[in-house]
Each structure stands twice: as C-alpha cells, then as structure tokens.
C-alpha cells in the first residue's frame, strides 16, 4: 500500500465517522462541528485527487463562511431536539426500507461496468494547475453562465432585502433645539367651554 492510499483511507475513515456523528450527535452544536470536520476532510480527499481548487473552495466557502453562519444560527435558536426526534423510531423501518431499496436500485445501474473509470484516466497531466484553468475557462468559455450566476446572487440579495426590510424605524428622540425654543402656548391650550349648569 503506497502512501497516497494510506492517506486516502485515513481521511475516509475520519469522513465517515464525522458524517455519522452529524446525524447522531444529540447536541446540535456538536453536529455542526462534525459537519465542519467532514467538509475539511472532504477538502483533503479532493486535494489528494489533485483538485486543489475545489479543496480550497470547500474550506474557504463552506468551513469559513457557511458553517460559521450555521453555528451562529444553531446557537441563537433554541432548538428542542427531543421534539424533532419524536416518532423517529416509528418512521425508521419504512424510511430505512425505502432508503435501502433506492440505494440498491441505483447501485445496480451505477455499479455497471460503464461507471468504472480507470484511475489513470482521471488523473491530470503533471504541471497543469486546475485553479488556473478554471479561472481561464470561467472568463472565456463560461463567461455567460458566470454572469448569470452573478445575477442569480443579486436576485437572492434583492429578495432577502424585500422580504425582511421593514422601512426606517421612527424611534422617539428629543431635539434640544426645539426644547429650548418651546413657548408656553405650544404646550398649554386654553379652551373656551360653555359653563355647565345643572
């Protein structure tokens, strides 16, 4: 067993354990932290496959941004896990059966000879940086989808603002200038009322 295979198995083991902990951990913060570990290990496996751009992207984007935000949300919301877990065991047999069935069906198709790409074909030739090629492609052949993606992000931003923005808050504040210049007649109003006779 060469060194690369050893590293692969090492990372895979961590990945599998971390992923399992994501769905089994009782504490949502632990689950989120294990998800971070899973993403990080995933990045390692990608780096092993010479896809260094994806490896960096997953660590920067998912670990750095998405998961930190996720942790904030988890910590801010008081999630009652026991209520979510209610009925888990009664749904498990049916869910597990459907899941296994689907895995088997897909396995039959995907396990066919067609998908067994030899490892040698999947490797990049030496001396090619895939960060550089992705960058070059993005601004040449893929410039149209790239710009569209930016518009989609803009729409996401507009949507978030439209749905949550509630206009400027009219908070109460005092203006010392007006306080100084105030006159008695601004505050007290003398009313002329007919005298009531009984």
């Amino acid at each position, binding site marked *: 067993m060469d060194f690369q295979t050893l590293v692969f198995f090492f990372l895979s083991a961590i990945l599998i354990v971390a992923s399992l902990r994501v769905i089994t951990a009782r504490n949502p913060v632990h689950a989120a932290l294990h998800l971070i570990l899973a993403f990080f290990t995933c990045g390692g496996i990608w780096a092993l496959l010479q896809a260094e751009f994806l490896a960096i992207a997953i660590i920067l984007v998912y670990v750095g941004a998405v998961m930190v935000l996720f942790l904030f949300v988890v910590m801010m919301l008081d999630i009652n896990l026991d209520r979510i877990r209610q009925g888990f065991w009664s749904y498990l047999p049916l869910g597990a059966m459907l899941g296994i069935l689907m895995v088997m069906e897909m396995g039959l*198709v995907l396990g*066919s000879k*067609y*998908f067994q790409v030899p490892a040698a074909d999947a490797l990049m030739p030496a001396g090619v940086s895939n960060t*550089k*090629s992705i960058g*070059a*492609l993005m601004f*040449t*052949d*893929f*410039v*149209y*989808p790239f710009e*569209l*993606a930016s*518009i*989609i992000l*803009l*729409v*996401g931003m*507009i*949507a978030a*603002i*439209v*749905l949550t923005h509630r206009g400027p808050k009219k908070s109460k504040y005092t203006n010392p200038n007006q306080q100084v210049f105030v006159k008695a007649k601004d505050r007290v109003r003398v009313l002329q009322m007919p005298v009531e006779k009984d």
Partner: protein
Amino acid sequence: MFDNFVVPDLLPAAPELFLAFMALVILMIDLTVKDRRRTLTFALTQLTLVGCAVIQLGTSTGDVVYTFSNMFVDDLMADLLKLFLYMTVIMVLFYSRAYILDREVMNKGEYYVLALFATLGMMVMISANNFVTIYLGLELLSLSLYAMVAMNRESVTSTEAAMKYFVLGALASGLLLYGMSMIYGATGSLEITGIAERLYGGGVNKSVLTFGLVFLVAGLAFKLGVVPFHMWIPDVYHGAPTSVTLFIGSAPKLAAFAIVMRLLVNGLITMAQDWQAMLVILSVLSMAIGNLAAIAQTNLKRMLAYSAISHMGFMLLGITTGVVGGDARFALNAYSSAMFYVVAYVLMSAGTFGMILLMARAGFEADNLDDFKGLNKRSPWFAGIMMMLMFSMAGVPFFIGFFAKFAVLQAVVAAGYMWLAIVAVLFSLIGAFYYLRVVKLMYFDAPLDESPLTAALDMRILISANGLAVALLGIFPQVIMSLCAYALLRSL
C-alpha cells in the same frame, strides 16, 4: 492558455443584455422615486420590455445562430417565444398594477425588478443550448418567483405557498440536475447539440442514458406541473397574491415548453421512444386528475390551478406524438401544435386571472367562485368577456382554445394514437363542466354584491382586448398556427 479565444458575438443576445442592464438601472432609479404610485418605475419596466421586443425584431435573422461558446442559441423558435413572452409580461404587469397599489406590502419597486429578472431567466431558458444555461435560467426564474410569492408577507397563506414552492422547486431542480449529470456521464457533453451528435454517432451506454432521462423528465414534469409532480401547483396558485399567480400561471409556461423542446427534442430525439412513453403516462394522468379535481374546487384560483395541470397534460400530447416508430415525418406538425397550444393557453390564462384582478379591490380578493355570481347584472360587458375566456378554456368551437385542442388532437390522430385522442376528448368534456359552471354563476345566479366594478380604464381596455383576442384568434387561428409552424420549421 486559451489564446485562440474569440470574443463572443453579442448581437444574438442583445435583448438579454439590454434587459439585464435596464433591470439594474431601474433598481437604482427606484431608490430615488418618492412617488407612492411608482409610475416612473412602472413605465420604465414596460418600456424596457417594449425595447426588448424591438431589439428582438431588429436583430432576428431567422437563422440558427450560436454564441457564447455555443451556450446560447438564437433561432426563430426562440425569437417567437420571446416575443410572446414580452407581450405576456407587459400584459401581466398592466393587470397587476391596480392590485399591488391597493396592497401596501407589495407596492415596491422591487416587484417590477423581480418581474424583469424572472423574464430574463425565461429568456435564458428559451435560448439555452447547454445544460448549465438551462439550469441557471431556471433558477433565476424560480428565485424571482419565490420572492414574489412571499412578498405579501403579512398573509400566512402566501408565506406557506412560498415555502412549499421553494422546497418543491429545490427538489425539482435537484432531480433535473441529477438527470443532467447522468446524461453528461453517458455522452460526455453538456451541450445540447453536442449530445444529439454523440447519440447519432452511437456507442453510448443506453442504460445510463435512460437512467438520466427518467430524472430529467421528472424534473421537467415538476416544472411544467403535470401529475404526479403537480402537488405544488394548487397550493402555490391559491396562496400566492393573485397578481403573482397571474405571472406564474402564464409566462413561465412558454419557457417550460422551450426547455422541454430543447432537452427532449433537440437533444435527446434519438431517445424519443423512451421519453414519449413517459410523457404519455404523465399526460393522461394530468388530464384525468386535473379535470376531476377542478370540479371539487370552490376557489377560482385553485380551480384554475387544476385546469392548468390538465392543460399542460393536453399540451404534452402534442410532444408525445412527434416520432412514430422511428419516423419523424409528423414531428413538425406535432411540435407546432404543442407550441400553438401553449401560446393559446397563456393568452387565455392571462385573461382569466386578469378578470380576478379586475374584480378585486383593496381588502377584497374576488377569488371565490361565489364572487362571480350575477356578474352579468353588475357588468354585462365583462361577464361576456369572462364567458368567452371560459368557453375558450373549455374548448368550445370558434374560440382559440378549441383550435388549440383541435391542432393537438389531429397531430395525435395523424400519429395513429386513436385511443389517446379519445381519452383526451373525454376528459375535456368532463373539464367543460367546471368552466361552464362559472358561466352559469355569472348569468343565472343573483349577485352577492351589487356594487359596480371600479377598475381603471387602461385595465378595462386591456382585459377587453385580451378577451376579444381569444375570440378573434379563434376565427383566424392560422395567424399564430402558421407562425409557430414556420418558426419550428426554421429551427428544428
């Protein structure tokens, strides 16, 4: 690296570029608009759409042109569909104006900007020649629509509808992407014309391709809203603000038709045997469940949602009969009948939802069947317009809806699927019941509310024009029919 890169020809995509630019400009200008009615934003939006139509007409060559490294295709089918699209969106925005002015939470400039971005998404879908652009166009459309549905955030039903739409839309996108990735795996190409070439060449693993095709068809069915992937349609149509329902129920059908044509007909025509069989099942189920469930509805928007399901099922009939036993002789006839059906449906559906908007006032939605009781006593003219729209939807002769159904049926019969034509006619007859019920309510029942209609003049004129178009195009259906046939002849 990439020294041989040529700057893409921007001319075929000029309408898209103009729309994207103007949407950004309007977004900025709207910040300075003080006017509560936002007339400037509204006018600029409409002018942008008119401008797009002018550019489209000016740049159309009638030939099939590829640009942006073959990711974008401009052919006559795309030109025609986009022109119908601009027209529909212009109509939709006119109809929506009074409705959103009456409702404070929706009266924002972003409403128009999101509508423009949704239109851009649809244009991208119509002109897509690559899986990536199809998907991005679809997401751009869907994201804008989710936000528009949720904009009425004080209403619980609208929020619920937006949530359902979002979750099911994400699921559908997932299915579509999974199918696309499988087909990419089998053919090694993301480009639709490239895939077609690979498949002609042979030597492609059939089982992987079929596996991908199943997911692809399921994803498309979700977006078209045909049974059994229709669950979101009634809830979204019902829960969304009526002006947004009008938008969702009209223009996106054109784009959905376009991506079905691009993916299945342009890309996977050699797999026609497989996907036609799937579409027949979807189509028959949609006509059955759509028409039967519509009878039980008391809410007009919900009824029209089930009606949309049955109409989309009917439209799919046209696409299923293009290739018979490997013989593509009937393809042009079949696909142009489906295209005609979509255009006719969009016209009718825009008019019908427009009628609901015409009746609605501040604080009153007019979306129950009972609200249309005795409309004839309140406004004989608009009762007449609504009657024409309902007759056309039901497929009563000499309205455009009849010729749309007729065109599809003759394509089905020409392809030799007699039983399919009989099933379609039977379910259309069942469907006629609930359309005619609306007519009965308008003419033979006493009104619940005697007040006259208060809609603005421009809205009255447009709705009348829409209703009359349904009748007039029923007398001269060849106008649109021959346009569709010619566009497809030059594009396929």
